[in-house]
């Protein structure tokens, strides 16, 4: 079973890296990009067979290590 964790900065937390990318897109002529937020994707290969158990375990992993919930949100996909 596979899980994908998407970690992004919370709304309201300034993302200077995203801003730099937005400016670079504008300089390439891509108009109308009103916001860029950077994040990361963490792919996990799990021995789990039950999707709901896996989801709960991955959420616990996010809370304890994979995300810093002071500044980041996470979303878990199980496949």
């Amino acid at each position, binding site marked *: 079973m596979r899980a994908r964790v998407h970690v992004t900065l919370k709304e309201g937390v300034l993302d*200077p*890296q995203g801003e*730099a990318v937005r400016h670079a897109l504008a300089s390439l002529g891509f108009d109308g990009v009103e916001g860029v937020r950077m994040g990361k994707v963490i792919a996990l290969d799990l021995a789990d067979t039950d999707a709901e158990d896996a989801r709960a375990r991955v959420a616990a992993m996010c809370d*304890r*290590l*994979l995300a*810093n919930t*002071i*500044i980041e949100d996470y979303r878990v996909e199980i496949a």
Partner: protein
Amino acid sequence: MNPRAGIVVSPGANCDRDLAVALRRAGFEVAMLWHKETGLPRGLDLVAIPGGFSFGDYLRCGAIAARAPILRAVADFARAGGHVLGVCNGFQVLLEAGLLPGALMRNAGLRFVCDRAALRVETAGSAFTASYAAGGTLVLPIAHHDGNYIADPTTLARLSDEDRVAFRYAANPNGSMDDIAGILSPNRRVLGMMPHPERAVDPGHGGTDGAALFKALAGVRSGAALV
């Protein structure tokens, strides 16, 4: 008997020996503590977490080191009232471990800053800052990519109201909220700071403003009570 300090060493730490020199010069006996240790030596008065790039800054700066076995022992030591100093990456580790509030993000200018920073001493009310005059200025080296302090408004207000901001930048180099360069725990015995006092203890460093922090700490004797 000399005061005793332990320095946490993780792969990628690179200021551990500098801290040892600064602490020994201030009179400490120093033990280097590998991150896989599950306990601390008995009778420590201080645990110091050095700067560097522990675990290659993987995931987030300080995130992996903060989950190392020895950090559980350091957290127990802090909860029992022990003094803990985290410098630069060590500050990041203390935040990731939840021993101090807030987080350190990528510098607002996106650049690694390597410079000397003027700091205002905001409080002399801690064992770390007792030798400085509140309101006074000192100059310490800074060298970091992720020193941009962030906390929610409630936390920021509490840090100020409880006199727990130890140092503020005179000229903000990294975007830190409230110009914060270093903060104290509620019991004032855990200090995390981005600037490097251990790199300013010898005239050869170009400045000695950091030496007073270690000298003041050498007066702390908590070890006997914390075995």
